[in-house]
């Protein structure tokens, strides 16, 4: 006879409400890990969007994601001429803030050269950019529709959305938008007309806008990437990073603080969950002291009593976890950040919840084991 099951069945509503409360807490823990995985994936997605073999950046920098990098626009021609480089393309990266109607819209603008590496990987709607100016491919999360016009830059040019991507976000959760390199350079380096006029009137030099943040290169499979990187590094004003190095920079430095913050909150929430489970188990045990004393008096072993407490704690934790997981899986699409549920993370969290339940039930078990069967006698 499974006493834990019978007790749970008898107090089913209390059990369901407890599990639901616990599921909200554990759901947040699951969401936190999902947010981290989402941020990691977003950061890597941007790096992997063009899937180059080599990143050429400003000398002495870990650009363009970990830190700022500016190199001359003609660097791409230099890189393309290096032995082993099959294709090369200039790219720029910048954040932009605009308004659609009265609603603010934040975008991460990627400037790329048409028909060269650096553009979006796959479109889910619309077409590629075909004009040199004022066309844009945006991520669906921006909420933009095909044909919609987006004002960008100090000169108020309107960019028409011609294509849509999916799940192309930055590690900060901003949707990525692709424009041509020329437009991106104008957005990044051109000054507003009043500033240009002021600079001209005071005889200042015109601003050179032919700058890019990086050059991405595809290397021939028959040539070592390291050899090409060494060749690039011979130019003292340039540095070369392999794709692997770039991904390491992003995962270890760009979102490192975010990872630590999420890990800290996750640990705190797990501790809070443990305390709450312990309190629930303690309360349930205190409610059952007379029943436990009676069971012991009529011959129940400590093992039976421990089983009763631990099984209830575990069933609460497991049900709470599964309900929490179902809630997160159902509603993660409405979360303002991408939440990615990785099976390995779920399995680890599940194991942690089981351990937490066992640890949390120890208080109840200690009380239950110490119950004197004699207390069942007498009023």
């Amino acid at each position, binding site marked *: 006879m499974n*006493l834990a099951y019978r007790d749970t069945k008898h107090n089913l509503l209390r059990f369901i409400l407890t599990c639901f409360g616990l599921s909200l807490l554990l759901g947040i823990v699951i969401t936190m890990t999902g947010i981290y995985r989402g941020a990691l994936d977003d950061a890597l997605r941007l790096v992997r969007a063009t899937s180059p073999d080599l990143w050429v950046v400003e000398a002495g920098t870990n650009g363009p994601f970990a830190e700022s990098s500016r190199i001359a626009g003609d660097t791409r021609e230099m890189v393309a001429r290096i032995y082993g480089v099959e294709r090369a393309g200039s790219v720029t990266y910048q954040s932009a803030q605009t308004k659609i109607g009265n609603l603010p819209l934040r975008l991460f603008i990627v400037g790329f050269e048409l028909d060269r590496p650096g553009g979006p990987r796959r479109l889910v709607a619309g077409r590629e950019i075909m004009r040199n100016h004022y066309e844009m491919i945006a991520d669906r999360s921006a909420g933009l529709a095909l044909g919609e016009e987006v004002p960008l830059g100090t000169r108020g040019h309107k960019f028409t959305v011609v294509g849509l991507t999916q799940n192309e976000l930055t590690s900060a959760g901003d949707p990525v938008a692709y424009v041509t390199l020329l437009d991106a350079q104008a957005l990044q380096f051109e000054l507003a007309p009043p500033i240009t006029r002021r600079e001209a009137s005071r005889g200042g030099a015109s601003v050179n806008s032919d700058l890019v943040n990086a050059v991405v290169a595809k290397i021939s499979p028959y040539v070592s990437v390291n050899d090409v990187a060494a060749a690039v590094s011979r130019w003292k004003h340039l540095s070369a990073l392999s794709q692997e190095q770039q991904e390491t920079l992003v995962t270890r430095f760009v979102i490192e603080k975010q990872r630590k913050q999420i890990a800290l909150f996750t640990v705190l929430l797990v501790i809070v969950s443990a305390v709450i489970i312990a309190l629930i188990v303690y309360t349930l045990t205190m409610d059952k002291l007379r029943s436990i004393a009676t069971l012991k*008096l009529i011959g*129940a072993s400590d093992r039976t009593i421990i089983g009763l407490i631990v099984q209830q704690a575990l069933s609460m934790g497991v049900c709470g976890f599964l309900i929490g997981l179902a809630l997160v899986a159902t509603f993660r699409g409405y979360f303002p950040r991408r939440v990615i549920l990785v099976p390995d993370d779920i399995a680890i969290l599940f194991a942690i919840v089981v351990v937490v339940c066992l640890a949390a039930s120890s208080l109840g078990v200690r009380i239950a084991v110490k119950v004197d069967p*004699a207390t069942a*006698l007498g*009023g």
Partner: protein
Amino acid sequence: MITKANEQAPLVRIENVSKHFGTGDTRVDALRNVSLEIYPRQVVALLGPSGSGKTTLLNCIGCILEPNSGRITLDGELVYDGRWLRSDLRRLRLEKIGFIFQFHNLLPFLDSTDNVAVALDLAGVNAKTARARAVELLDYLEVGHRKHAMPSKLSGGEAQRVAIARALANRPRIILADEPTAALDSHRSGIVMDLLRKVAIDQDAAIIAVTHDDKIFDRFDHIFQLRDGRLERDVSTNSDRSLGSKTFSDITV
């Protein structure tokens, strides 16, 4: 105080059992050299004011409180002789002793049948046999029609009958009852005591009850008075009651 020898062996034999709590100035002698023999088919009461030691004596007989000295023999097995002679007192209780409580102490999450079957389940009896035996016991105690009722839906008398059925589940020959009628009115108290007598005779068992309920004094074969830890006397006036092979006149207090 030991009952006179008889051709039938006593189910409970207590010899010079003492129990004290605390030491020095705070020492309380709960039992002082108590001796007692209780035979099959006897229904006896332990009577006394609060703190007289009756619950302590019941706990010592029930193997849930260790005396400081003396000997306890249950159903022919010497279980205490200055120390417990069996390590598995839980098993001993399961096999030899049934408990009936003041407030029935039914498990609130089990129905009547399972409340009885749980005692068999703890003894390792398979579920089907346990339930069949539970239903049989409930019928025997005339509460079979309430076999699916939860404890909260039972009247006081019905709950106490289910509790008695649970106490009888493993066919113990010693039944300890702690104020079994305290929560019942006089009519139901009488019914419960008649049932206990029936059980004592049918199961060849001994029933020892702690009670303050003077309405049921006439239902006992013997009433032992405890005062300050001493078993003072048998105050029973029911000396002619038939007890199968024994009568009150056989008892020497």
